[in-house]
């Protein structure tokens, strides 16, 4: 979806909502189609956005500075989901924790503080992090 494909001199930016899920490709019958990472990793392309990580507060979750996050807005944030939340005008990645009568946004690095609020409604959550692309 987000790869820039050079097609006859034109940069195609995004191609969405055009191939109904489950439409059989003629090649599929023979198991010949090459793996399409976009299709494997992105369940809802229209509702999925990519962000670049800056900082080291989520290293315990395997999310490092410079990594790219796939964030799906169609997923309900469950307790313990890694989410992107708006805090003080910035998007911040944290682990969501729903306790009894409170909600916390937890870093996964002991050097950073936990943010606690009374309920989920006090948070502006952009979406749920589904994958992290890390250059090894």
């Amino acid at each position: 979806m987000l790869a820039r494909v050079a097609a006859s001199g034109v940069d195609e930016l995004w191609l969405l909502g055009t191939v109904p899920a489950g439409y059989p490709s003629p090649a599929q019958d023979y198991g010949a189609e090459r793996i399409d990472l976009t299709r494997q990793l992105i369940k809802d392309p229209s509702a999925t956005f990519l962000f670049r990580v800056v900082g080291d507060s989520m290293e315990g979750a395997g999310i490092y500075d410079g990594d790219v996050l796939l964030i799906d807005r169609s997923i309900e944030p469950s307790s313990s989901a890694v989410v992107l939340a708006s805090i003080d005008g910035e998007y911040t990645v944290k682990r969501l924790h729903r306790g009894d009568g409170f909600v916390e946004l937890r870093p996964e690095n002991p050097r950073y503080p936990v943010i606690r609020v009374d309920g989920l409604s006090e948070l502006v959550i952009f979406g749920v992090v589904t994958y992290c692309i890390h250059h090894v």
Partner: protein
Amino acid sequence: MSRPAVALVDANAFYVSCERLFDPRLEGRPVVVLSNNDGCVVARSAEAKQLGVPMGEPWFKLQATADRHGLIARSSNYELYGDLSVRLMEVIGRYSAWQEVYSIDESFIGLNGGAAAGRAIRDGARRLLGIPVSVGIATSKTLAKLANKHAKAHPAFEGVCDLAEAPPGWLDNYLATHSVVDLWGVAGRTTRRLAGYGIHSMKDLRDADDRQIRRWFSVVLARTVRELRGEHCIPLEGPRATRDQLIYSRSFSTPITDADRMAQVMAVYAQNAAQRLRRHGLVAKTMTAWCSTSWYGAAQDHPSVAVSLPTHTDDPIELVRAATAALPPRLTPDTRYVRAGIVVTDLVPRGSQPYLEPFVPLSERRRLGDTMQAVEDRFGPGTLGLGRAGLRTPPEWAMRRQMLTPHYTTRWEHLPVARAA
């Protein structure tokens, strides 16, 4: 088979909403988006409207308001808006078997289920894309457009107005108290001529004899009369233009089922768009192309793609290449498409675009070469040369760059930041 109601789904201050999605600091603050040719306001947040910022106002006249009220401006980021538009159209399409894209942020859809269905669309667009939309529901496009306007004007509707829920007599009263000038597709000139026949309000027009209107005015206005009576009859056809986009769409006499024929259609539409761009002395950088299946019919599909052109252009070859490369491969086999269209955005006057692009497409070079040759033949060698000198004024361009946000969703180097802090 009775037709479903028609809904107009229209994003609220679409360009501002796109900017806000990636910059939460803009939430709740007055924001405007400026055209990139002359720095005029092309989109206003509700807060900016409340400050009395008029549409089309030049930014330099708003400096005082900006200082006093913290009004924030952004240059238009059409690459971003184009991507979010394609996403929005796709999401809206999930709620309906029938969809006609009307502009970069508006589409008409067939809708069963009234206001509840409208609220589902509003919530879906908000949840999946973070884009607020308003939904107007009625039995014709003209009335859906009015319902949408009403939903936007009155916060109590929370963005969804279904005329079927209006109390008896309400619509009559509404039409009687609103001038025909506010009707979709009725120009000021027509309004003055209508006044000559004693037709002032929308109700006057609705109750006029549509055959006479057809004789005195046009088929188009006669259709509006019938639409006001709740009869759905306006096809979305032909060219349209607004301040910042140029649209060309048509229905086909016979459905198209294969990519080759769709490529031909795209070629014709792209040439039409190129012609209109030239007539207005404009060049475009972004194109959206779409097609859709009919209101009825089993297999429903409304593919839509956006393309960023290599440079600002009005070159038919370049536009045709973009349109034919992008859409046809997206068709679902054995599906009957009955209409298609293209929208070009990021319009700037020819000659005002930055001259030193990384590279210029071949066709553009060829044409430029021909023109240069013609000039030299006529006025002698050395009268015309390539270069940036004198072609534009750098400060203007610098200002535009300053307020331009990254192409967050279309460039790997522009990804928005997720802080891990």
